[in-house]
Each structure stands twice: as structure tokens, then as C-alpha cells.
């Protein structure tokens, strides 16, 4: 496959692996967090851990949109889906996320709710056009990558004069989540979590550019290397982080220069700014309430805001007490540290959200990496 295979070349991977092994200082450890679920998935799927020396450890971050969606918002959507004659459209990964009492959109669907999986927000608009007598709600989630398409859908619905289309907005922001992690007591005071550098988001950065990360590099003295989602991208980014750390630098570097610029996609940013505004605070699964970390629909587009149209009330549903998704999303624990992992919580019957999406740390480890015994991955 052109333009893809080049970035999955095993021989090149061995080269980079040799460079990492040569350059990594055996007297220190490198704790690198990949923020994005896309990177988590690539690391597990291609077995990247096998190519790294023992003192270079990858820590999975919270950048999985399905994983960080709190159960309360999923419950909101499930209740909404049970409204007679309403069609709820959502991305596929969301269907299996458990909410209160093990209920999920998939189970609600089996009980008669009209829940439809779509590949794009435009499909939801099309469904609204095709069903003028029924309310159609698009359950919008995701980081900056999926936000512009939601803005387009809202503007499209407005242009078409659709009265039966609305969006349940749950879009969240990457930079706020990174700050939140870096400011957490686990890193700043307790030292529970050693974190030396970040692999920065791929697709998110194509939209927001590399500039927003400059603050973290400067303020927290942590190097950031923006990387694509292909395995060679990840390997190269790890090498670049090792070099920065060895040289005592903390800069933003861009490995994904084939797609990411410093300013990002300005047109998309303007579109998002036109349709959305910051929420004062938003609850993240695992991170709790994070200030200014999510978007809501602006007043001029209020007609398309499902939260207003259906008077959706905030719900707070605590996670299962034994579930470690929170600590795993903050990078403090690993999937196999959770008592539920692989016992009552599996991809077929997920208890926590990290076990749902293939980008979730638990699902990725379960599906691709669980042949590695616990001894292989000693916490450091």
C-alpha cells in the first residue's frame, strides 16, 4: 500500500531500534508518554515494545476520546436514545461503552432504541434529511480532530434549514488534558509518576499545529515530539525524545512534518471558533473535572444544541470502585495493575472505558500484548 507501507518497514525499524539502543544512556531511565490512543494502538499492534531497550518505557496517556468520556454523558445519551421516535447517531466505538448498571448504547439498541453507527458527522445530517418526521441527534465526541467535522455538520444543517437535527456535544481539548496531567500532584509533588517527555498527537496536531505544545515544553521542561500514527513515526519520535533528554533540551519537535505545521489548519480552527466556545469545566473519566477543557455550542447555533433542545441534565456516575481506568488514564497505573483486567473486565464485557476502544490502553494491552507476562513490564 503506497504511502503506508513505507512507514511500516521492518528493516528501517531495526535501524532506528539500533540507534535508540546505542544512544539511550544505560545509567538512566526514559519515561515517555504517548498522549494519543492512536499511538497506544500502534505501539501494541506492531509490537514496538519489543524493539526498545529495557530502560525506555512507554506510558499510555489519556488521548482516547471514548475512554475519557465520563459515564454520566454516556448515560445521558442512552436516555436520549430511549426517547420515542428519536434516532441517535454515533461513532462505532461508542456503542459498547458501559454506563450505569452495565447498560450501553449497544444494549439500548437491542432493547429497541434506534441507535445508528455512522462513519462521519455528514452521515448523521443525511439521516436527518431522510427522516424529516424524526429527531436525529449526533452524539459528538473526540478531540480537535473530530471537532471541525461536527462544526461542518451544524453549519450544513443550518444551511439546509433542518429542524430535526441536533448535536450532543462532548468535544474535548488536548492541551488542557496535558496541562492537567503535568500539574497533577502525582507528578509535581508525590513523584509517583515519572514522566520525562511526550509523544505529541498526530491528527490533533494537523488541526491545532505544533505551537500549543510550546508552552508545556517551556513551562514544565518536558520535550514534546509530534509524531504520526505509523509505527516508524513512533520509533523515530522515541529516538528524537531520547536525544533531547540526553542533551538536556526540552523543545517541541515535529516528526510528523509531512502533515503538521506550526500553525495547523487555520481554516478548521476558525470554523471551530465560529461554532463552539469553551466550557468553564468538563468532567473527564479518570481526570475528573478539568477547567476549560471542552467545547459547547455557541448561542447563534443554540437551535442545534441537543443539551438545550432535550434539556439534558448533568449526571455524575461513579466508576466501578475496583476499576483503575482513572489511574491508567493518568499514566499512574498499567492495565495489568488493575484487579479487573482480564478477569471480569475484557473487551467482550468491558467494565471500564479503557477496555472498550481499540485505542484504550487496556483493550490494546489485552488484544495485542497480554502474552507478555507481568515480569516483562515491571513498573518503574
Amino acid at each position, binding site marked *: 500500500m503506497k504511502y503506508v507501507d513505507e512507514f511500516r518497514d521492518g528493516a528501517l525499524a531495526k535501524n532506528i531500534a539500533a540507534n535508540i539502543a546505542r544512544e539511550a544512556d544505560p545509567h538512566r531511565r526514559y519515561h515517555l508518554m504517548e498522549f494519543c490512543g492512536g499511538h497506544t494502538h500502534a505501539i501494541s499492534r506492531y509490537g514496538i515494545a519489543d524493539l526498545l531497550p529495557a530502560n525506555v518505557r512507554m506510558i499510555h496517556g489519556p488521548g482516547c*476520546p*471514548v475512554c475519557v468520556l465520563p459515564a454520566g454523558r454516556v448515560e445521558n445519551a442512552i436516555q436520549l436514545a430511549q426517547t420515542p421516535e428519536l434516532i441517535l447517531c454515533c461513532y*462505532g*466505538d461508542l456503542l459498547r461503552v458501559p454506563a450505569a448498571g452495565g447498560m450501553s448504547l449497544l444494549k439500548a439498541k437491542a432493547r429497541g432504541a434506534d441507535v445508528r453507527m455512522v462513519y462521519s458527522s455528514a452521515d448523521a445530517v443525511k439521516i436527518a434529511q431522510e427522516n424529516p418526521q424524526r429527531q436525529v441527534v449526533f452524539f459528538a465526541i473526540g478531540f480537535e480532530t473530530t471537532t471541525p467535522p461536527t462544526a461542518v455538520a451544524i453549519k450544513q444543517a443550518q444551511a439546509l434549514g433542518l429542524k430535526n437535527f441536533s448535536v450532543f456535544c462532548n468535544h474535548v481539548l488536548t492541551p488542557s488534558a496535558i496541562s492537567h496531567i503535568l500539574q497533577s500532584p502525582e507528578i509535581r509533588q508525590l513523584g509517583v509518576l515519572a514522566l520525562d517527555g511526550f509523544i505529541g498527537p498526530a491528527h490533533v496536531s494537523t488541526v491545532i499545529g505544533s505551537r500549543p505544545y510550546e508552552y508545556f515544553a517551556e513551562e514544565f521542561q518536558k520535550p514534546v515530539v509530534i509524531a504520526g500514527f505509523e509505527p516508524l513515526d513512533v520509533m523515530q519520535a522515541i529516538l528524537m525524545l531520547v536525544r533531547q533528554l540526553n542533551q538536556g533540551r526540552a523543545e517541541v519537535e515535529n516528526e510528523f512534518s509531512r502533515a503538521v505545521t506550526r500553525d495547523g489548519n487555520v481554516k478548521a480552527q476558525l470554523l471551530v471558533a465560529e461554532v463552539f466556545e469553551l466550557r468553564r469545566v468538563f468532567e473527564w473519566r479518570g481526570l475528573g473535572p478539568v477547567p476549560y477543557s471542552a467545547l459547547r455550542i455557541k448561542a447563534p447555533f443554540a437551535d442545534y444544541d441537543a443539551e438545550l433542545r432535550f434539556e439534558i441534565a448533568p449526571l455524575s456516575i461513579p466508576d466501578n470502585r475496583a476499576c483503575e481506568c482513572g489511574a491508567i488514564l493518568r499514566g499512574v497505573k498499567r492495565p495489568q495493575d488493575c484487579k479487573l483486567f482480564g478477569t471480569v473486565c475484557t473487551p467482550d464485557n468491558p467494565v471500564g472505558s479503557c477496555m472498550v476502544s481499540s485505542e484504550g490502553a487496556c483493550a490494546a494491552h489485552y488484544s495485542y500484548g497480554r*502474552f507478555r507476562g507481568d515480569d516483562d513490564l515491571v513498573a518503574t
Partner: protein
Amino acid sequence: MSTVKHNYTRPLDFKHGRVDMTHGSGGRAMAQLIDELFVAAFDNEFLRQMNDQARFPAPQGRMVMSTDSHVVSPLFFPGGDIGCLSVHGTLNDVAMSGARPLYLSAGFILEEGFPLGDLKRIVESMARASRDAGVPIVTGDTKVVEQGKGDGVFITTTGVGVVPDGVNISGERARPGDKILVSGMLGDHGVAIMSLRENLTFHTSIQSDTAALHGLVAAMVAAVSDIHVLRDPTRGGLATTLNEIARQSAVGMMLQEDQLPVREQVKAACEFLGLDPLYVANEGKLAAICAPQDAERLLQAMRAHPLGGDAAIVGEVIEDPHHFVQMETAFGGRRVVDWLTGEQLPRIC
């Protein structure tokens, strides 16, 4: 001269007619549908007996029997339709024991309102598939359900066959050291079907690989009589099939990603849909496991057959108390190839 008029039945209108409830009621309309469509298309000496059961000579030896229900949507897809699929599916399940399939039955659940023309196309496709395979459909059944209670047509087929003496192919016979082979390109059927699914229409030249595999199996058994395991990786793809065998045989497996035959177009479709070809359905492929010293001979026999031209040795059975199927990635790492979870859902970003 008798004044009693001859019976006259207006022939079924295959151009504009539709299935209605009378076609399943047991009355004249049903008899007509059976005569003009099913018996006409499937015609064979057993069906012509017109009894509630087919009577046929029983061969000597061990018989196998398998049944399979077909609910594919859409009913017509590039490279096939539910008709030939329902014949191939069951023939292949019978053949995976090394058996020679002998007879088939077919049960139809039709939805009221289904166009008779489409039904005719489907039945003729079944008849063609059964003739090509040399395995007659000897008995059948038809039911009609009210509109909204079905999805056009569902077909259940059952097949019986006989296993040659000395052949013992079974899912629990994989042993550490055995080689794992596949008969050709993986994932064609699933991608062909997905290209037509609602909300997902994309253009592809990929055709379903639906095919009857008993000829290939016969050639394989002739070359290597002691094949340990045969299975066709349908729903859930090769990954799921190998996990089933690993559990049954209490072994592990190690696949080589760079040896897996997958078409570029299938790879590309899977790439943008967020799917893994290892989990995508096949309808005309098989996985075989045999002793290492037999592997090359088996591979050559497969490659010499028209349905095995792209056959490859893709991995090895290993000892593993956890019964994991693992894979050496082309990238140089290692990972689990797990059971399919739920339906394969696309990743969102």
C-alpha cells in the same frame, strides 16, 4: 365427452410477482412455487420423488453432517449472492472434515412482499452452485413470514458427506511444530460485502471469494492423507478460526505477518475502515495444519489447484499453556492475535 375442465394454473409471474402469505400456507400456491421454481431449478431424481423426505443410498464408512444458516445482507454482492453462498457455506463445512459431500437440503424463510424475480435469481444461483459442485439439493422446505419479520430471504442448508478411510481431520489435532497454511488471499468476501453496506458505499474491484472447496480438499487429502486440521475461516476471519483451533488442541500458534496473503485493495479498504484483514470474513478459503514434513507437499498440492493458487505457509503451532495465537509483525515486534470482540467496529480517529 367429459365437461370437467382441465386444471389450469396461471404460471408464476417472475417479472412483477411477489411472495405472499399463501406461498407458505401449504396450499396450491405453495405447491406451485415448489414445482415451478424449486423443483424446476434443482431438478434431480431424489427431489422428483416428491415425498416429505429424500430417500438415498447410504454409503459405507463415516458420515459427516453440517448445517448453516445464511442471513447475508445485501442479498446480491460482487462475486455472488445468498444463493450460491448458502450452497458453498455448507459444502465447505462438510468438506473441512476431508469428506466428499453427497447431498444437500435447503430451507427457505421468505418475507412477504419479496420479489419473485429476485427469489428466482437466488434459486437459480443455488442450482448452479449445486450442479457445479456435483452435490444435489435433495429436499427442502419453504416458510413465509409477514412483512417486517424477515429480511427478504433467509436460507438454511444442511449437507451430508462421507469421509474416506484413513482420513482423520479434526480441530484437536494441531501439535507443536505443525505448519499452518492458508489457501489464498484473505478478507475478500468481507470487504466485498462491506463495500455495499448502508452508509459505507465505496467502490472496489474486490469480489467475494465464495466457492466450494471440496475439490481442493480432495486434492489436498490425495497429496497428504494425514492433514491434522482443516477449517474455513468465515465469520471472524482467520484470527478467530485459529483461536478456536488453538483452544481445541490446547496449543499456541505463531504467525508470520509478512507471509499472510492479502490483496492490496483489501489492505487499503481495511486501512481506511479501521479493520484488520485477519478478522474479515472469507467464503472460499481454508486454513490447514499438518506435520512439518508434509507442509511443502501440501502447499504444492494446494497451489496446483485453481482455488489454491495463492496458498502460503503462514505460521507454526507452538507450545503455549495460555493457547495464545501470536504474530511476528512485519515491523519486527510480536503481538497477540486475539479472538474477535463483538462486531468489528471502525476506529474513529
